[in-house]
């Protein structure tokens, strides 16, 4: 028996020695990417960088919606752990703060052209910085809008949005398209409503009480939930898809929009590359704000912000950290590389980065340039995101099956009280 034990121990030891085999190579980069849609472009960029400098860059993309799982597993790998990863909101800073190298005054941080996209922990350590920002709103097919008899810039508030949507839906058979794309509530699509659209309430609440929203509020009021409901109902009712079938999901809203079957599509600027691949022209699309009946919303702009924040692994070797920093710097300063990165990411808020040709980001800039207010991404504060949102999905499914006030009350409970409960679950 002792012999067996000795053998087992020897084997285990041998294995662990192999695993620990020292490597004295120059630093390398391992980027654990967060967005499946940008994987292809990033792989090419990595190859470009390796060809230019000889430094190895590995890009691995976590499957959609599994970033935290993948990061948890990968971070456990010691020397093989990612050197560059995404810490996209305050909750992630709480979780991964210890793993973030302080970026204050580093050469990459100095390249930022704004201080709007910096995430710091409680001690003021600069944990992560944005590498691109994004906008979302109501993607609109302006060619179809004109076909339906409305001017491109006709819609400036909820009443006009409603007028257009109801007109198009009523005449869908003759026009050949409907007002809104499907709003599936399965995992691939529900975030457009439980995350993005929910921002309607969070944002206007934060306008009423900026102090409470300077960091994650312990509880929220739900003041603007009637506006949320109005816009949501408008979308669900004026669509070719029966609302009772939304729970099961399985729709492809992007394909519906690209095929010209719908006028409006709730989503963000990142959809552009997919839409243009499917043959849409930049001059035929734009993005309009979430008009939901709030007073003064004629001056609203798009929802701009980002969850794409870079962090360097503080537990990686110094050589790897340096290599990673060099790679990031190259990505935002090299003309060719940044042009390519910008075409996948949208806008990169760096001094020397290339300009974007994304029509939705152009719309965001136009609204901002015309003095409209930008709606900040308050939904990034959602506590225990997955748990909070999945409860919302469940409540909204019941509401879609039977749109009664009683069922809406459950949505409100999940929305407002669910926030406080999840906040408590995190903060004890």
């Amino acid at each position: 028996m002792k012999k067996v034990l000795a053998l087992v121990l020897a084997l285990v030891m041998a294995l662990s020695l192999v695993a620990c085999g020292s490597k004295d190579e120059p630093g390398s980069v391992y980027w654990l990417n967060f967005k499946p849609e940008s994987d292809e472009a990033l792989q090419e960029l990595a190859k470009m960088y390796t060809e230019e400098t000889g430094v190895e860059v590995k890009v691995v993309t976590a499957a959609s919606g599994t970033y935290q799982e993948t990061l948890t597993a990968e971070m456990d790998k010691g020397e093989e752990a990612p050197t560059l990863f995404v810490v996209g909101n305050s909750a992630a800073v709480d979780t991964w703060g210890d793993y973030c190298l302080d970026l204050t005054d580093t050469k990459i941080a100095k390249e930022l052209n704004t201080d709007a996209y910096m995430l710091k922990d409680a001690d003021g350590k600069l944990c992560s910085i944005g590498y691109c920002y994004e906008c979302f709103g109501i993607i609109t097919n302006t060619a179809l809008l004109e076909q339906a008899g409305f001017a491109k810039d006709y819609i400036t508030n909820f009443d006009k949005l409603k007028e257009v949507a109801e007109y198009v839906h009523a005449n869908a058979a003759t026009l050949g398209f409907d007002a809104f794309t499907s709003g599936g509530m399965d995992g691939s699509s529900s975030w457009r409503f439980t995350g993005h659209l929910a921002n309607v309430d969070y944002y206007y609440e934060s306008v009423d009480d900026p102090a409470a929203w300077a960091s994650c509020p312990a509880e929220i009021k739900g003041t603007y939930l009637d506006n949320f409901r109005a816009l949501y109902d408008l979308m669900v009712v004026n669509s070719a898809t029966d609302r009772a079938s939304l729970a099961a999901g399985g729709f492809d809203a992007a394909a519906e929009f690209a095929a010209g079957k719908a006028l409006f599509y709730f989503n963000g600027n990142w959809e552009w590359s997919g839409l243009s691949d499917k043959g849409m022209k930049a001059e035929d699309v734009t993005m309009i704000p979430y008009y939901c009946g709030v007073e003064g919303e004629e001056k609203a702009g798009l929802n701009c912000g980002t969850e794409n924040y870079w962090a360097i692994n503080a537990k990686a070797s110094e050589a790897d950290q340096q290599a990673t920093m060099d790679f990031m710097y190259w990505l935002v300063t090299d003309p060719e590389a940044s042009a390519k990165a910008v075409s996948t990411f949208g806008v990169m808020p760096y001094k020397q980065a290339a300009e974007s040709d994304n029509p939705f980001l152009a719309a965001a800039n136009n609204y901002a340039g015309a003095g409209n207010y930008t709606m900040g991404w308050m939904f990034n504060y959602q506590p225990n995101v997955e748990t909070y949102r999945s409860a919302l999905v469940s409540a909204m499914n019941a509401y879609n099956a039977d749109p009664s006030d009683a069922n809406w009350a459950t949505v409100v409970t999940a929305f407002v009280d669910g926030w406080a409960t999840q906040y408590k679950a995190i903060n004890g």
Partner: protein
Amino acid sequence: MKRPKKRANGNGQLISRSIRRWFPLFMGPMVAAFAIGFLWPFIHGIYLSFCQFRTTSDAEWIGFGNYLKALQDESFRYSFGYTALYAVVTLVLINVLAFAVAYALTQKIRGANLFRTVFFMPNLIGGIVLGYIWSMIFDGILSHYNTSILLETRYGFWGLIILMCWQQIGYMMIIYIAGLQAVPEDMLEAARIDGANRWQTLWRVTIPNVMPSITICAFLTLTNGFKLFDQNLALTGGLPYTINPDGSAVHTTEMLALNIYTTFYGQNTAARGTAQAKAVLFFLLVAVISLIQLRATRRKEVQQ
């Protein structure tokens, strides 16, 4: 030098000596794999259940706090009850149906082999795939009534039962067929000569003789029921929820394993230790149930 006493063994000793010399070679890899793939993670898992941690290599000891939180968690208690109910229903349904199918297919029916193959095939499909396929089937039917499997707890419950029956009956059937074929022909003949009718033969001769198969199948279905994860995740993912007045939610079709998973990943990392504690409790539970069940059915087996 060997003591003379042992010489008497002669050949036997020669064999046992070479076994003694070589068994590390044959057993070693298996023991090593077992240690690396099971023992170590298991011990590490128990350790982690007493810790607060984000990654498994970076843990801080906190004692029994995780267990306390796990036991106070309403959703955990709910999923325990739900899983138990589910396991009992599948235990009965799958075994009765699998036995019936096996019994039918051991009678001399034409094409019995073809049927066996067909019944067995669902087993070859992975749980996640099955879950999504069946959710399409169920929703395809339920959409005619303007509802969905994600909207009613009972649909989710029975949906999962139908799915698991469909998947597992074939497997259990194979075990029962083997058992049925091993029932001694002379016993059956004796029963016939003594004037027993088919029903009596089934209950008095066949079933006592296939008790070992029943033990195995009951064991498998019960533990499968408790450990079920993929199908649960893919079919309903715990939906629908009951939203409590305080905004917390009970996932009404969530079973134990999925509850552990959502605790681990759905919440912030403070809950990871709690999830780990739940996982240890889950292991104890499945182990205890299986042992009790094994002992109970073993007693009924007949010695041949």
